[in-house]
């Protein structure tokens, strides 16, 4: 018997029973009956401009994304069609260079090809440029949440750097050309860090105030020490210490903002539980973003369903790996990435990608439904925002060839107060690059890109402006 296989190929797939029923409820309880209370927002900011990126990895199971557009996204199209754009024939920055289909994550928001060495290119990503414009005075300039990621620690110790480029599949946002914003992948940690102090019951406010004042005194003191040490260091060391300075500045701003809120609180929901599936975790992440938007903690966020590579088999005590394998879909034999290799010859793999696409869209719709309740005086937050929803890879089966780089499944929801046209369900862009769309976002938000090496050379998509 003879058969044709690819060197990386496999034709055997595990069939295991569902670990979790498909009826498992996603997301957290919808607690807010009241209209939002923007604790930190300035007067007159009834519905602020916001920017959200929701990203999934590895593209879809078909090159033209018809299933994704017509079936997976049907619910969103039905409910938010006038605010929805689909883009077609949009390429990522690697095109036409052959590449790993896992690399595009890192350049999804930069529009710049990053070929395996962090410092050889890239720039501040589009979300960060927008954050500087619309969220700089918020307690947190931007927040970045994610799902399962690939563990790389053992690969980067002891001189083992060969898998280094896989690192890039773990993040989409870049603070600078060499400093990624790694997403927080534990929703409970993200909740505790960002939201917990906003929802303290009023009976505890007096105690909280004293605690916050003390905390702020210490933070101010530590910040002065960080700045002092920084002055004694070389340039590269100063850059590393800057990360700590930024981190503490952010904490100090949050504490200061909590003090300034003068005891006012903003309902933030419940702490997400552990042991979540990938989609439950995505829903929990988007719930945190919803509350962060509602309380005006920030106006810019990114959320990745998973990294572009996928992790190893989860261990019971490793929360962040537990959801790695879509076990609730009955696919335990490999990661989503592993299944992507099977798409051209396995219906099982195709079906997994279909179901993931549908469930991803359901999670996003859950967020949109909730986000829409933040309307004020009839103005929907979607009318003051842009939500970028898409994947930096095209056809999921493609590896190291151009099919992964072209015809990306990309959509936007929102029209930014009319500054960004919407309702176009098939906007063919004829092979233009993702950075051109980013340039359009920047133009709509009024971001000056004259000093930005990447985006100043991009040509905005005029059809949406």
């Amino acid at each position: 018997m003879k058969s044709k296989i690819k060197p990386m190929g496999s034709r055997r797939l595990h069939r295991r029973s569902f670990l979790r029923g498909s009826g498992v409820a996603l997301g957290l309880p919808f607690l807010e009956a009241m209209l939002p209370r923007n604790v930190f927002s300035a007067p007159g900011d009834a519905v602020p401009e916001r920017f959200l990126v929701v990203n999934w990895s590895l593209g879809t199971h078909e090159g033209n994304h018809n299933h994704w557009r017509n079936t997976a996204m049907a619910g969103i199209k039905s409910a938010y069609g006038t605010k929805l754009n689909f883009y077609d024939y949009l390429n990522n920055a690697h095109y036409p260079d052959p590449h790993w289909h896992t690399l595009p994550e890192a350049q999804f928001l930069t529009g710049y090809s990053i070929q395996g060495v962090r410092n050889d290119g890239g720039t501040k990503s589009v979300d960060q440029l927008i954050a500087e414009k619309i969220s700089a005075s918020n307690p947190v300039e931007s927040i970045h949440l994610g799902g399962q990621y690939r563990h790389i620690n053992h690969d980067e110790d002891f001189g083992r750097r060969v898998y280094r480029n896989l690192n890039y599949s773990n993040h989409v946002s870049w603070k600078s050309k060499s400093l990624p914003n790694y997403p927080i992948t534990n929703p409970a940690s993200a909740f505790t860090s960002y939201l917990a102090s906003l929802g303290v019951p009023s009976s505890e406010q007096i105690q909280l105030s004293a605690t916050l004042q003390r905390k702020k005194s210490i933070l101010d003191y530590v910040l002065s020490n960080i700045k002092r040490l920084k002055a004694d260091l070389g340039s590269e060391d100063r850059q590393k210490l800057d990360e700590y300075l930024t981190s503490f500045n952010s904490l100090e701003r949050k504490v200061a903002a909590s003090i300034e809120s003068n005891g006012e609180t903003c309902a933030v929901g419940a702490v997400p539980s552990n042991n979540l599936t990938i989609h439950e975790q995505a829903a929990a992440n988007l719930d945190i973003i919803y509350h962060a938007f509602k309380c005006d903690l920030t106006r810019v966020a990114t959320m990745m369903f998973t990294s572009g590579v996928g992790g190893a088999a989860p261990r019971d005590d490793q929360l962040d790996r537990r959801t790695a394998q879509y076990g609730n879909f009955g696919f335990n034999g490999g990661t989503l990435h592993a299944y992507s290799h099977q798409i051209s010859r396995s219906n099982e793999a195709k079906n997994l990608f279909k179901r993931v696409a549908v469930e991803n869209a359901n999670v996003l719709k859950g967020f949109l439904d909730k986000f829409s309740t933040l309307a004020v005086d009839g103005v929907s937050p979607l009318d003051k925002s842009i939500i970028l929803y898409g994947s930096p890879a095209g056809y999921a089966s493609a590896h190291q060839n151009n099919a992964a780089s072209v015809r990306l499944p990309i959509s936007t929801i929102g029209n930014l107060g009319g500054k960004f046209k919407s309702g176009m369900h098939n906007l063919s862009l004829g092979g233009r690059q993702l950075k051109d769309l980013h340039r359009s976002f920047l133009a709509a938000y009024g971001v000056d890109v004259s000093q930005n090496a990447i985006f100043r050379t991009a040509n905005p998509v005029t059809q949406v402006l």
Partner: protein
Amino acid sequence: MYLLIISAFLLSGCVDFLGQSGFRASNTAGGTTPEGTTTPGGITTPVGGTEVSNVPELCTDLIISPKVIHRLNRDEYINSARIITESSFYPAVIDSMTESSFGFINYASNITTNDIHGSIFFAAAEQMASHMVQNKNFAASCFNGQSVQDVACIKQNLSDLISTTFRLLSVPSSVLNEFYNFFTSLTDVNKKNSLESTLVAVFSDPRFLYRAETAQTNAASGVRSLSSQEILSRLSYYLWGSGPSKELIARAASLNFSSESTLRSFVVEMLNDPKSDYLVETLMTRWLNIARVDTAASAEAQRLRSLFFNESKYYFKNLIANNRPVSEMVDSKYSFLNKELAEHYGVNSAGLSSEFSRYDFDGSQKRGALLAQGSFLAALGTTDMEPHMSHIVVRGVSVLRDITCTPIGDPPDGATDTEIEIDESKSKREKIEAVTSPAACISCHSLINPIGFALDNFDLSAKYRENYEGKTIDVSGSFVKTAFSDLGELKTILGKSPSIPKCAVDKVLSFAMGRQVDANDRCAVDNILNRLGEEPKFRDLIVEIALSNAMLTKKED
């Protein structure tokens, strides 16, 4: 994950193994950098620094790559917290950092700090401060009720704490006064609360979280030798994975590190301390991939993972504690087993208990050394998603890449999309040979496959087998143009290879430095090898790295 890893092993453009992999004489000093520029050379001593009088080096072409400021990773933070609190306590909140591997890796340049880290470090500092004041009664004798009774007492306690936390041989009065003034500036009625807040500030300070080496040099080379304080800090994190204890600081303060014999004795003392177990476990888990046994593909291997882990741990402890030859990492006839593991391996378990003890295999048994240990074999197993590649390629690449430091690049573009006709009636070896037969693949797979084949007598849970899918497993091959008939002969070839100690120096030095060893370190590596002599031994290797110029000098960026 494995699928992509395997794809990375379908390689092209593989360098000439014999020419560049380290199978060469080690003394290859030269006078230029790889780019051909003249090397800077010359080491100066900074103010407050020490001259280190090393034995004459055969290679004088000393270039040190800059060492980036190093934030404590998770393990280092926890170990340091235990040293500072002199207890098993560490702030539980630091565990929440397990959400991301970023920050736990060893390379300083790759350890990043994001928004959430600030919150976590601050919360950890609060927990540590609370533990010190509430549970450890820190400076309690200095108080009378809620008021300070003895200022000198407060200052002394603070000074001791700052010394351990910031890894200082002596605490400058300016530093002590900084924190004491902060303490007095707080207006709590209960000054114990002020003290707790001051401790939060100490534990949040970058001088704790970052291993900064701030002394400057005016030398044109930008290279200087480290001060005793800086040496102590580097040694402590290298050998213990923590800051130095109060006792170690006191001992170091009484010594002159400019004397090599003094420094050597000091390093050996540190290695004799149980805290050096950290080094043993880190070497084997991270360098040799043994941590991956946690995610082994085989359910049986998962079940046995703690046994596998212990076998390797005892083996490596033995190599270091008894200063065994580095070659024994790959070539020996013994291991450390307990009854359950011996039974799993199918060797005589008579006389064994649940405790691990040295086990000498007889000549007919194919075991002994790392390559036949469950941790190594199971950690590199792959899932059935990859029946044609399986663990053979992964194991082969791991031996080449991690144990011989053979440089292996990425697979060629498009290699993995090429369809190859496979005869399903063939053996696994024949299928793999067919899959890797394209010209773009074979240059590297001619090196990778024989090693993987030699290890194929061991299944994914490290059980010995003679057959697979009804066919006899052929484990013969050749390595570095030397034929072998089985794993035993391959181990002998590997054991004699100079690439093994050279690779060990590369790997351990990179861990010690917290950065990748690069071409600039060639001279440092060669000097260490020269000092190790004809038959390098493991404990000597660790000590010589501690005493090397790479460890005792710094180049400013």
